[in-house]
């Protein structure tokens, strides 16, 4: 058993190694070594195997094993330029200077770690860190600002932890190599970001220092996702209106002030208690979220980017963590200390104490007490001379003089050995390696995809969780791009099951927002529209099971609101579908804006059609100086009087209240006409409601179709993806090519073979010219005749064959199977066709041949080379 266990352990070991290796190979995409042959497992029984399997499943491969640094042997160095493989004399000199500097430094500060000055590059050549920076301005306008730039670097590269978390790496690769393999450690990240930032004009530096565990491992699980943070609502300060001179005094307040005060006190107590509870709750939560103490706190080496204020309108110094692309204040407690920093011109050592993280550091690089520089004469030594002298006198230590004496005063940094950083448009668009990236935040997960990677246009998805372990999904937000239905964002709330779709302008139904729980019609939903794109000015349509409310804006009839109440559908035969059996409408309420062209007492503000009670209620607008509005109520009931005649209109069919009684409105005729008008309007409104229902159905259908199809639009400027334009372009090219061929043909020199017989460069005599012409013409004539003969021969051959076949058919007609007969018939028709075509060709040739001959003669006659011919005739 003991032996077995050992064996199993061996197996595990092997498995683990192999897994790691496989992962490595998969990542590096370079299968340099052949796959190792698996060990034979035949000696193990089934049971053992199961046991092994179980054990194996329990093993968790540590994450670090999955992410090995891409090592030298995976990089193809053969294609790299010379500057990568050798050092120029100037670089050699610089390295000497750096060595000297380093020696003096370690002599003067023996308790500090050695400097990170000239790590090896991918070709094992030592290179000074400043020369590894290659300031480059990217051709993409998106990368001009630091935030998008940092975001790009963090998206584009995959993070690899340092081989030894306590030491700077031994190698620092060029940014071009890093870009090629799309992965790197924190030094690679910050070198690349720094190159880009300096290129776009920022005063940026690479920093070698110490960071917290989260920072070094790019662990964002303790950070709130920036997308979930709601922007703080800016509290609008209400401008206190000065009381005007004649503002009326408010009526005297008769409430007891004492009681009010007591009430306020009570309220405050309650609030204080609530607050306390809340705070306690929060504290508890905070406890739970706090990180475990890190044993190596303060020793973990990290590299990030420092941006100093001054250039590009940067108001104050800040750090950028190249892993995440986030910016931090220089006071942030995750940055635990700075060893040194450099840009493309110089190298500085921090001489300040970092006991309190980076909070007390002063980033005045011209101050030689705080920052020891390596090269003199760069633009950062701007501190005035007197101060420098002072510090020199005061400081017993001669640290500031180190490295200076034997250094050439005018020595400046050699040019970078790195090739220009280039990012192809495809790579820029794809961004993340393989176009996909997942970031885990505190209670949230963010997934990103390159555009057009997903067939439904999904570009990012944010999943928010309820708990820290990320098991209960709270809500999902999905962003889309380039969708033909203009869908921009899909928001799914898992707790309420509410889905909200947001659209960009341009949807065929002018949709803006669509929130719903189910795609079934006649359920709770709210659809908002881009009202300017709609003829009817509809802004919003809300639906519940029994009501439908519509809001309008900017209509010529001033309608602002329509609300319809439905009764449950009367059960009919199963045949009738939803469309043919609309729900009966109980009530329609319509509201109108004020029409300035009409007087207020004739301008209807609200009308209610009570369809079930056959009643119509009108409420008019209120006049400016009034508080009551006119009202009118019509009973539409048609009644029959005692004699059986239809009562047209009686005074009690219209009850009205008028603010200013008018004479003409009392008349029955007026009321009758108003009622007739309203009846017509009622019919129209019912129709409108019905149409709205239909429209909802249509929208739902369209949405379902769009969801199913999810076609993406491709810009006409996108030459790579736009199939149509590609086809068009290719067709154009083809046409061009053909055109070219034709031109070549027309330029075919008919005289060339004849001229070649004569010695070149000599002028033709008349005799020669005539001979040439005759030869050419006779040759052409021969060719025409040959062609005619050829066609004739083919024609005859076809005819003969057909005759033969016919003969054969007539002989064997009786014995033929239907299939053979069919075959024969099809052959006949084809042969007839061929014969006919040949005949036509022959005829055409006969017609054209003389013309062609004449044309050639004409051409020859005009040919400048045969100029002699013309002379005679001229």
């Amino acid at each position: 058993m003991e032996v077995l266990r050992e064996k199993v352990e061996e197996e595990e070991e092997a498995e683990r190694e192999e897994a790691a290796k496989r992962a490595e190979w998969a990542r590096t995409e370079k299968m340099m070594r052949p796959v190792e042959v698996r060990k034979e497992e035949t000696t193990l029984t089934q049971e053992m195997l199961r046991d092994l399997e179980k054990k194996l499943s329990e093993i968790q491969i540590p994450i670090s094993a999955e992410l090995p640094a891409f090592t030298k042997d995976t990089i193809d160095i053969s294609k790299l330029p010379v500057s990568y493989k050798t050092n120029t004399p100037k670089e050699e000199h610089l390295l000497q200077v750096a060595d000297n500097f380093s020696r003096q430094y370690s002599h003067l500060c023996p308790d500090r770690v050695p400097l990170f000055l000239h790590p090896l590059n991918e070709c094992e050549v030592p290179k000074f860190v400043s020369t590894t920076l290659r300031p480059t301005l990217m051709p993409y306008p998106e990368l001009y600002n630091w935030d998008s730039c940092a975001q790009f670097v963090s998206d584009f590269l995959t993070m690899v932890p340092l081989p030894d978390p306590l030491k700077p790496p031994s190698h620092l690769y060029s940014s071009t190599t890093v870009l090629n393999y799309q992965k790197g450690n924190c030094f690679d990240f910050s070198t690349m970001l720094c190159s880009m930032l300096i290129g776009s004009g920022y005063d940026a530096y690479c920093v070698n220092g110490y960071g917290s565990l989260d920072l070094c491992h790019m662990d964002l699980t303790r950070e709130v996702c920036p997308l979930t943070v709601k922007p703080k609502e800016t509290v609008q300060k209400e401008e206190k209106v000065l009381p005007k001179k004649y503002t009326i005094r408010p009526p005297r307040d008769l409430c007891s002030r004492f009681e009010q005060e007591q009430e306020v006190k009570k309220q405050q107590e309650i609030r204080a208690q609530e607050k306390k509870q809340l705070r306690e709750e929060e504290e508890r939560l905070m406890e739970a979220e706090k990180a475990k103490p890190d044993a190596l706190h303060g020793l973990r080496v990290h590299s990030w980017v420092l941006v100093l204020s001054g250039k590009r309108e940067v108001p104050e110094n800040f750090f950028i963590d190249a892993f995440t692309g986030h910016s931090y204040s220089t006071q942030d407690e995750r940055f635990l200390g700075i060893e040194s920093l450099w840009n493309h011109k110089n190298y500085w050592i921090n001489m300040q104490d970092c006991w309190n993280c980076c909070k007390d550091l002063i980033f005045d690089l011209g101050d030689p007490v705080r920052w020891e520089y390596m090269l003199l004469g760069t633009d950062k030594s701007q501190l005035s001379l007197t101060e420098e002298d002072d510090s020199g006198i005061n400081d017993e230590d001669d640290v500031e003089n180190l490295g200076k004496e034997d250094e050439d005063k005018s020595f400046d940094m050699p040019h970078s050995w790195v090739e220009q950083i280039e990012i192809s448009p495809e790579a820029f668009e794809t961004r993340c390696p393989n176009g996909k990236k997942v970031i885990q935040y505190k209670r949230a997960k963010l997934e990103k995809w390159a555009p057009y990677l997903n067939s439904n246009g999904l570009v990012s998805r944010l999943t928010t969780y309820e708990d820290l372990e990320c098991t209960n999904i709270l809500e999902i937000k999905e962003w889309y791009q380039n969708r033909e239905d203009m869908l921009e964002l899909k928001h799914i709330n898992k707790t309420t099951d509410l889905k909200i779709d947001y659209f960009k302008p341009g949807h065929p139904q002018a949709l803006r927002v669509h929130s719903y729980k189910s795609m079934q019609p006649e359920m709770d939903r709210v659809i908002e529209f881009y009202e300017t794109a709609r003829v009817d000015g509809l802004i919003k349509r809300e639906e519940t099971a029994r009501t439908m409310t519509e809001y309008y804006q900017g209509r010529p009839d001033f309608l602002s609101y329509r609300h319809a109440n439905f009764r449950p559908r009367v059960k009919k035969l199963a045949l009738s579908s939803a469309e043919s059996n609309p729900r009966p409408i109980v009530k329609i309420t319509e509201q109108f804006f004020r029409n300035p062209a009409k007087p207020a007492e004739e301008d209807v503000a609200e009308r209610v059609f009570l369809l079930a009670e056959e009643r119509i209620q009108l409420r008019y607008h209120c006049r400016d100086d009034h508080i009551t509005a006119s009202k009118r109520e019509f009973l539409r009931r048609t009644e029959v009087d005692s004699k059986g005649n239809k009562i047209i209109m009686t005074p009690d069919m219209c009850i009205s209240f008028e603010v200013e009684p008018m004479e003409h409105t009392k008349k029955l005729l007026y009321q009758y006409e108003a009622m007739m008008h309203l009846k017509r309007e009622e019919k129209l409104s019912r129709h409108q409601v019905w149409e709205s229902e239909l429209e909802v159905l249509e929208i739902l259908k369209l949405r379902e179709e769009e969801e199913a199809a999810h076609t993406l639009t491709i810009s006409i400027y996108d030459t790579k993806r736009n199939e149509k334009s590609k086809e068009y372009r290719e067709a154009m090219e083809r046409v061009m090519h053909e055109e070219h061929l034709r031109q070549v043909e027309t330029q075919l020199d008919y005289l060339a073979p004849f001229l070649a017989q004569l010695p070149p460069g000599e002028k033709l005599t008349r005799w020669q010219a005539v001979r040439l012409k005759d030869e050419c013409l006779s040759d052409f004539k021969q060719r025409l005749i040959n062609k005619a003969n050829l066609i004739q021969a083919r024609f005859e051959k076809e005819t003969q064959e057909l005759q033969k076949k016919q003969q054969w058919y007539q002989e064997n007609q009786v014995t033929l199977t239907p299939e053979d007969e069919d075959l024969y018939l099809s052959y006949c028709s084809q042969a007839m066709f061929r014969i006919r075509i040949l005949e036509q060709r022959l005829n055409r040739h006969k017609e054209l041949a003389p013309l062609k001959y004449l044309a050639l003669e004409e051409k020859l006659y005009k040919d400048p080379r045969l100029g002699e011919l013309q002379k005679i005739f001229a």
Partner: protein
Amino acid sequence: MNRLCDSMEPKVMDDDMLKLAVGEQGPQEEAGQLAKQEGILFKDVLSLQLDFRNILRIDNLWQFENLRKLQLDNNIIEKIGGLENLTHLVWLDLSFNNIETIEGLDTLVNLEDLSLFNNRISKIDSLDALVKLQVLSLGNNQIDNMMNIVYLRRFQCLRTLSLSGNPISEAEDYKMFICAYLPDLVYLDFRRIDDHTKELAEAKHQYSIDELKHRENLMQVRLQDERARQEELEKHKTAFVEHLNGSFLFDSMYAEDSEGNKLSYLPGVSELLEAYKDKFVIICMNIFEYGLKQQEKRKIELDTFSECVHEAIQENQEQGKRKIAQFEEKHLSSLSAIREESELPNIEKMILECSADVSELFNELMMLEMQLVEQLEETINMFERNIVDMVGLFIENVQSLMAQCRDLENHHHEKLLEISISTLEKIVKGDLDEDLPDDLRALFVDKDTIVNAVGASHDIHLLKIDNREDELVTRINSWCTRLVDKIHKDEIMRNRKRVKEINQYIDHMQSELDNLEYSDILD
């Protein structure tokens, strides 16, 4: 055609004829029955057709106040008249009549479409009031002067014109002329004018049109200047300091003062007068500027006041509206509850509750109104105090300035008297070396005469100054009283109106409840 009808008996437009026409042209079918039942008032009629009726004289139309469209074609009308009351008329058809001159249309300011086709008109005029005229039909008339077209330039909205069948339409230049002079015209003689014709016409008549335009522009500018001056004066008048921004007052002092004018020929007086005038004008200017400044201040005061009052009223109205809305919501639900209730005692109880609600609403609304009245009264009183103070201050200051004027006058008078007496002495002594006009010399008879003459001049001047001062003071005082009165009256009117409105509403509510009660009892 109408010539043929001449032989027929002309008819009179009497009440019966109009009633018949209104009845025939009124609503039909069910509505017609109702209309017959109730009778149609002439003032409710919007359109009236009276053609082929042999009418000689337009009459009895004064009741049709709201008429929009009137057709009187194919009659034998000879004179347009009796249309003065039809101010809402938009469409008037008087074609195929015997009209000779255009007249009696001065009150029809809303008229857009006028047809005078086939009449005997020879001159286009008397259409000045018809500023909205769009369509004018004057075909088959006797217009023979092209210059009638120029008259039509004043109608900015005129788009359609027909003049065919007139003597002028015979002229070869007819179309071009009209197109050139009426560039906004779209249809001429029922045909659209194309752009090409327009261009041609413009080119052809460019010089005369330009000249005309130039003249019109000049007229316009002059009118505008006049208006601006009038406005300026009006502004000064509201500040009560008109004509004080110059030597107008000083000149008026000397306008009726013959002695003063005579005395100005005395040696040394003209210089004195000059200096006096300068000083006087400076004081006048001071008064003027001060007046304008004060006017501005009063205006701001008044504006703030009316704004505040308006805000207060608005606020109050909003409160009232909210109260009513709340009430109506409750009322509606209780009404439907009553309708559904079947037990009589319950119904009575609920109705009682409802009426209690109504009276509650009444109390609330009235309380709001009373509160507003009190608040406004306080504000109005404050404003009144302030404005009266301002006016008082203004008067005081003007009076002190006027006193300065008077001082100047007195001073001038003394100087003049001195000069006069010395001159008299010189004359008496006979050593006056200068020539004096005869009428002036006539004054130097003795001391009394000359003193009287100088005194008379002085009195006139003082009187003028006093008059101006009095005028200013009276006018500003009366303005002030009128303003305050108006504010008080407006407030009272507003209050009455609101109380009436509330009462009306409450009455309506109450009567509705009562009706409900009756109907329930009946049921």
